Protein backbone atom coordinates (compact mmCIF):
# COMPACT_ATOMS: atom_id res chain seq x y z
CA UNK A 1 0.00 0.00 0.00
CA UNK A 2 2.80 2.39 0.87
CA UNK A 3 4.54 1.61 -2.37
CA UNK A 4 1.30 1.95 -4.33
CA UNK A 5 0.74 5.45 -2.94
CA UNK A 6 4.38 6.33 -3.47
CA UNK A 7 4.49 5.30 -7.11
CA UNK A 8 1.12 6.87 -7.87
CA UNK A 9 2.26 10.19 -6.35
CA UNK A 10 5.64 9.87 -8.07
CA UNK A 11 3.98 9.41 -11.47
CA UNK A 12 1.75 12.41 -10.78
CA UNK A 13 4.71 14.53 -9.66
CA UNK A 14 6.75 13.70 -12.74
CA UNK A 15 3.79 14.27 -15.04
CA UNK A 16 3.16 17.66 -13.43
CA UNK A 17 6.82 18.63 -13.69
CA UNK A 18 6.94 17.66 -17.36
CA UNK A 19 3.73 19.59 -17.89
CA UNK A 20 5.28 22.73 -16.43
CA UNK A 21 8.20 22.45 -18.82
CA UNK A 22 6.43 21.25 -21.96
CA UNK A 23 3.02 22.95 -22.06
CA UNK A 24 2.76 26.09 -24.16
CA UNK A 25 0.13 28.03 -22.24
CA UNK A 26 1.42 29.52 -18.93
CA UNK A 27 -1.98 28.96 -17.28
CA UNK A 28 -1.73 25.24 -18.03
CA UNK A 29 1.82 25.28 -16.66
CA UNK A 30 0.57 26.77 -13.38
CA UNK A 31 -2.12 24.09 -13.11
CA UNK A 32 0.33 21.25 -13.66
CA UNK A 33 2.56 22.89 -11.06
CA UNK A 34 -0.30 22.39 -8.60
CA UNK A 35 -0.28 18.65 -9.39
CA UNK A 36 3.42 18.42 -8.58
CA UNK A 37 3.08 20.48 -5.39
CA UNK A 38 0.29 18.31 -4.01
CA UNK A 39 2.23 15.16 -4.89
CA UNK A 40 5.18 16.53 -2.94
CA UNK A 41 2.78 17.16 -0.06
CA UNK A 42 1.84 13.46 -0.22
CA UNK A 43 5.53 12.55 0.04
CA UNK A 44 5.86 14.85 3.05
CA UNK A 45 2.96 13.00 4.67
CA UNK A 46 4.62 9.67 3.97
CA UNK A 47 7.83 10.97 5.51
CA UNK A 48 6.05 12.04 8.69
CA UNK A 49 6.33 15.81 8.24
CA UNK A 50 2.77 16.70 9.18
CA UNK A 51 3.35 20.44 9.60
CA UNK A 52 4.99 20.74 6.22
CA UNK A 53 2.05 19.02 4.51
CA UNK A 54 -0.25 21.77 5.70
CA UNK A 55 2.26 24.47 4.86
CA UNK A 56 2.92 23.06 1.42
CA UNK A 57 -0.75 23.04 0.50
CA UNK A 58 -1.64 26.38 2.10
CA UNK A 59 1.43 28.37 1.07
CA UNK A 60 2.27 26.84 -2.28
CA UNK A 61 -0.97 25.57 -3.77
CA UNK A 62 -3.08 28.14 -1.97
CA UNK A 63 -1.01 31.29 -2.28
CA UNK A 64 1.80 31.05 -4.77
CA UNK A 65 -0.04 29.31 -7.59
CA UNK A 66 -3.08 31.51 -7.11
CA UNK A 67 -0.77 34.51 -7.40
CA UNK A 68 0.72 33.02 -10.57
CA UNK A 69 -2.74 32.58 -12.08
CA UNK A 70 -3.72 36.05 -10.90
CA UNK A 71 -0.78 37.60 -12.74
CA UNK A 72 -1.36 35.47 -15.82
CA UNK A 73 -5.04 36.37 -16.03
CA UNK A 74 -4.80 40.03 -14.99
CA UNK A 75 -1.66 41.35 -16.59
CA UNK A 76 -2.20 39.64 -19.90
CA UNK A 77 1.08 37.80 -20.09
CA UNK A 78 -0.66 34.73 -21.47
CA UNK A 79 0.84 35.13 -24.90
CA UNK A 80 2.03 31.91 -26.46
CA UNK A 81 5.77 31.59 -26.68
CA UNK A 82 7.27 31.88 -30.10
CA UNK A 83 8.22 28.50 -31.44
CA UNK A 84 11.44 29.53 -33.13
CA UNK A 85 14.41 30.00 -30.83
CA UNK A 86 16.97 32.77 -31.12
CA UNK A 87 19.63 30.23 -30.23
CA UNK A 88 19.28 27.10 -32.31
CA UNK A 89 21.44 24.89 -30.12
CA UNK A 90 19.85 25.91 -26.83
CA UNK A 91 17.33 23.08 -26.44
CA UNK A 92 19.69 20.16 -27.13
CA UNK A 93 22.37 21.71 -24.92
CA UNK A 94 19.85 22.21 -22.11
CA UNK A 95 18.69 18.61 -22.46
CA UNK A 96 22.26 17.31 -22.39
CA UNK A 97 23.10 19.47 -19.36
CA UNK A 98 19.99 18.14 -17.64
CA UNK A 99 21.04 14.54 -18.23
CA UNK A 100 24.53 15.33 -16.92
CA UNK A 101 23.05 17.05 -13.84
CA UNK A 102 20.82 14.05 -13.13
CA UNK A 103 23.78 11.68 -13.44
CA UNK A 104 25.79 13.85 -11.04
CA UNK A 105 23.05 13.98 -8.43
CA UNK A 106 22.38 10.24 -8.59
CA UNK A 107 26.12 9.66 -8.29
CA UNK A 108 26.18 11.81 -5.15
CA UNK A 109 23.16 10.01 -3.65
CA UNK A 110 25.11 6.77 -3.56
CA UNK A 111 28.01 8.17 -1.56
CA UNK A 112 28.07 8.48 2.17
CA UNK A 113 30.47 11.43 2.20
CA UNK A 114 27.94 13.51 0.28
CA UNK A 115 24.77 12.53 2.09
CA UNK A 116 26.04 12.08 5.63
CA UNK A 117 23.84 9.04 6.00
CA UNK A 118 25.47 6.77 8.52
CA UNK A 119 25.11 3.04 8.31
CA UNK A 120 24.13 2.78 11.97
CA UNK A 121 21.27 5.21 11.43
CA UNK A 122 20.87 6.54 14.97
CA UNK A 123 24.08 8.49 15.31
CA UNK A 124 22.40 11.87 14.77
CA UNK A 125 19.41 11.37 17.02
CA UNK A 126 20.45 14.10 19.43
CA UNK A 127 18.65 16.95 17.63
CA UNK A 128 14.95 16.64 18.18
CA UNK A 129 14.99 12.90 17.91
CA UNK A 130 13.13 10.57 20.16
CA UNK A 131 9.43 10.06 20.62
CA UNK A 132 9.30 11.70 24.06
CA UNK A 133 9.49 15.20 22.59
CA UNK A 134 5.95 15.14 21.28
CA UNK A 135 4.56 15.19 17.78
CA UNK A 136 5.97 16.62 14.60
CA UNK A 137 4.60 20.13 15.15
CA UNK A 138 6.00 20.36 18.65
CA UNK A 139 9.40 19.13 17.54
CA UNK A 140 9.55 21.63 14.68
CA UNK A 141 8.36 24.45 16.93
CA UNK A 142 10.87 23.65 19.65
CA UNK A 143 13.72 23.66 17.17
CA UNK A 144 12.41 26.73 15.35
CA UNK A 145 12.04 28.91 18.44
CA UNK A 146 15.28 27.88 20.13
CA UNK A 147 18.06 26.96 17.71
CA UNK A 148 16.64 28.85 14.74
CA UNK A 149 15.21 31.93 16.48
CA UNK A 150 17.62 34.38 14.85
CA UNK A 151 17.05 33.09 11.30
CA UNK A 152 13.33 33.21 12.06
CA UNK A 153 13.54 36.91 12.91
CA UNK A 154 15.61 37.57 9.79
CA UNK A 155 12.90 35.83 7.74
CA UNK A 156 10.32 38.17 9.24
CA UNK A 157 12.46 41.17 8.26
CA UNK A 158 12.85 39.72 4.76
CA UNK A 159 9.10 39.38 4.31
CA UNK A 160 8.49 42.95 5.50
CA UNK A 161 11.19 44.21 3.14
CA UNK A 162 9.63 42.30 0.24
CA UNK A 163 6.20 43.79 0.90
CA UNK A 164 7.56 47.33 1.27
CA UNK A 165 9.65 46.97 -1.86
CA UNK A 166 6.72 45.65 -3.86
CA UNK A 167 4.52 48.55 -2.75
CA UNK A 168 7.21 51.12 -3.57
CA UNK A 169 7.87 49.64 -7.01
CA UNK A 170 4.17 49.34 -7.86
CA UNK A 171 3.54 52.93 -6.81
CA UNK A 172 6.45 54.29 -8.77
CA UNK A 173 5.45 52.47 -11.95
CA UNK A 174 1.82 53.60 -11.67
CA UNK A 175 2.97 57.19 -11.07
CA UNK A 176 5.18 57.11 -14.14
CA UNK A 177 2.30 55.62 -16.16
CA UNK A 178 0.06 58.47 -14.99
CA UNK A 179 2.76 60.97 -15.96
CA UNK A 180 2.99 59.41 -19.43
CA UNK A 181 -0.78 59.52 -19.80
CA UNK A 182 -0.89 63.13 -18.62
CA UNK A 183 1.87 64.04 -21.05
CA UNK A 184 0.06 62.32 -23.92
CA UNK A 185 -3.19 64.07 -23.03
CA UNK A 186 -1.38 67.41 -22.80
CA UNK A 187 0.27 66.97 -26.16
CA UNK A 188 -3.05 65.87 -27.65
CA UNK A 189 -4.69 69.06 -26.41
CA UNK A 190 -1.78 71.15 -27.65
CA UNK A 191 -2.04 69.73 -31.12
Amino acid sequence: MEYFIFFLAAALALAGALGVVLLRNPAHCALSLVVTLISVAIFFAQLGAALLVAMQIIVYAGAIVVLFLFVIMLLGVDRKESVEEPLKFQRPVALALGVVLFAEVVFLIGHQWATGKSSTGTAHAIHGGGADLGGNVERVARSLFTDFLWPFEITAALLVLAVVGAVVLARRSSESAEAVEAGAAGSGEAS
Partner: protein
Amino acid sequence: MPVLATTIDAGWYLVLAALIFTIGAAGLLTRRNVLVMFMCVELMLNAVNLTFVTFARELNDIRGQVIVFFILAVAAAGRWRR
Protein backbone atom coordinates in the same frame (compact mmCIF):
# COMPACT_ATOMS: atom_id res chain seq x y z
CA MET B 1 8.75 8.01 15.01
CA PRO B 2 5.54 9.54 13.66
CA VAL B 3 2.63 7.28 12.92
CA LEU B 4 2.53 7.95 9.21
CA ALA B 5 6.22 7.29 8.62
CA THR B 6 6.79 4.62 6.04
CA THR B 7 9.40 2.00 5.42
CA ILE B 8 10.05 3.08 1.84
CA ASP B 9 13.77 3.31 1.24
CA ALA B 10 15.17 6.84 1.13
CA GLY B 11 16.85 6.19 -2.20
CA TRP B 12 13.50 6.24 -3.99
CA TYR B 13 12.74 9.70 -2.67
CA LEU B 14 16.21 10.96 -3.49
CA VAL B 15 16.12 9.72 -7.08
CA LEU B 16 12.64 11.17 -7.53
CA ALA B 17 13.81 14.52 -6.14
CA ALA B 18 16.79 14.42 -8.50
CA LEU B 19 14.44 13.82 -11.43
CA ILE B 20 12.17 16.73 -10.49
CA PHE B 21 15.19 18.98 -9.96
CA THR B 22 16.58 18.02 -13.37
CA ILE B 23 13.26 18.66 -15.12
CA GLY B 24 13.06 22.06 -13.43
CA ALA B 25 16.62 22.96 -14.41
CA ALA B 26 16.09 21.92 -18.03
CA GLY B 27 12.88 23.92 -18.13
CA LEU B 28 14.63 26.96 -16.68
CA LEU B 29 17.20 26.71 -19.47
CA THR B 30 14.72 26.27 -22.31
CA ARG B 31 11.61 28.32 -21.55
CA ARG B 32 11.43 31.98 -22.55
CA ASN B 33 8.45 33.15 -20.47
CA VAL B 34 9.50 34.75 -17.17
CA LEU B 35 6.53 33.34 -15.26
CA VAL B 36 7.18 29.82 -16.48
CA MET B 37 10.84 30.20 -15.54
CA PHE B 38 9.69 31.13 -12.01
CA MET B 39 7.55 28.00 -11.98
CA CYS B 40 10.59 25.93 -12.92
CA VAL B 41 12.48 27.50 -10.02
CA GLU B 42 9.58 26.46 -7.77
CA LEU B 43 9.95 22.92 -9.09
CA MET B 44 13.65 22.89 -8.19
CA LEU B 45 12.91 24.31 -4.72
CA ASN B 46 10.36 21.55 -4.18
CA ALA B 47 12.85 18.88 -5.17
CA VAL B 48 15.31 20.27 -2.64
CA ASN B 49 12.56 20.38 0.01
CA LEU B 50 11.79 16.73 -0.64
CA THR B 51 15.47 15.88 -0.21
CA PHE B 52 15.63 17.81 3.07
CA VAL B 53 12.57 16.05 4.49
CA THR B 54 13.88 12.66 3.37
CA PHE B 55 17.12 13.22 5.21
CA ALA B 56 15.26 14.62 8.20
CA ARG B 57 13.58 11.24 8.49
CA GLU B 58 16.66 9.26 7.56
CA LEU B 59 18.95 10.94 10.07
CA ASN B 60 16.13 11.44 12.62
CA ASP B 61 16.97 15.14 12.70
CA ILE B 62 14.14 17.67 12.88
CA ARG B 63 16.34 20.50 11.62
CA GLY B 64 15.79 19.35 8.05
CA GLN B 65 12.11 20.17 8.37
CA VAL B 66 12.88 23.54 9.96
CA ILE B 67 15.08 24.44 7.00
CA VAL B 68 12.23 23.48 4.64
CA PHE B 69 10.11 25.95 6.62
CA PHE B 70 12.60 28.71 5.86
CA ILE B 71 12.76 27.75 2.19
CA LEU B 72 8.98 28.02 2.01
CA ALA B 73 9.08 31.46 3.62
CA VAL B 74 11.77 32.76 1.27
CA ALA B 75 9.98 31.33 -1.76
CA ALA B 76 6.84 33.14 -0.65
CA ALA B 77 8.86 36.36 -0.30
CA GLY B 78 10.22 35.85 -3.79
CA ARG B 79 6.70 36.04 -5.21
CA TRP B 80 6.59 39.75 -4.39
CA ARG B 81 9.24 40.49 -6.99
CA ARG B 82 6.54 40.91 -9.54
